[in-house]
């Protein structure tokens, strides 16, 4: 299982700050986005802007995620 932290509107829509996603070796950021929507269809509209962070760094769609990575998904940031 991959543990995925959610923040801001993504957390509100999912109704949960942390999701657990069944995970296979070799799956990527892009795969994660599909699995998130399958589990929580409400996240669909957020996907085009959704940012994925692996171990505190932003990751592009093609990056492979290990089940042991620290992963977070969230909309564009708006601090300041």
């Amino acid at each position, binding site marked *: 299982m991959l543990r995925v*932290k959610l*923040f*801001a*509107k993504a957390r*509100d829509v999912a109704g949960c700050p942390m999701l657990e996603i069944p995970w296979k070796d070799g799956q990527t950021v892009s795969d994660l986005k599909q699995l998130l929507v399958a589990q929580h269809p409400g996240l669909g509209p957020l*996907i*085009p*802007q*959704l*940012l994925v*962070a692996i171990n*505190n*760094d*932003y990751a*592009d*769609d093609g990056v492979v995620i290990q089940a042991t990575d*620290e992963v*977070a998904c*969230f*909309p*564009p*940031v*708006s*601090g*300041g």
Partner: protein
Amino acid sequence: MSQGLHMISLTHSPIDYFALTESVRSSQSGAVVLFLGTVREMTDGRRTVALDYEGYPEMAEAKLAELETVARSKWPIDRIGIIHRLGRLELGDISVAVAVSCPHRKQAFEAGQYLIDELKVTVPIWKQENWDDGTTEWVHPGGGNSKP
């Protein structure tokens, strides 16, 4: 990292920007620039009553440290201090303070503006508007799914 003196943090308490500014003053620098972001009442004709800030603390601190490293590679920065507040903020409250000292003023202005501009697009913190009609709304700048 050997980056000299700095104070970079997230807090749920009111920001003491006086202490932050004092922490970057030095007789090696002729210029200090402080930026404060404060909660503004009116945005595009709508009235805010409060903002709620949420952060992803571990990553936010990592990104702030990165920001410091990059800024130091671009300008001869003496000291840097950045504090971002999280939680419920009322009108006029300070959400973020960025202080930087440099030998000369142009460097300090450029570095200060760079730090707050980059903070706003790379550091994982989000704000939720509380409008005066009772509705709430996450502020999520639009624009592609590329890295910010």
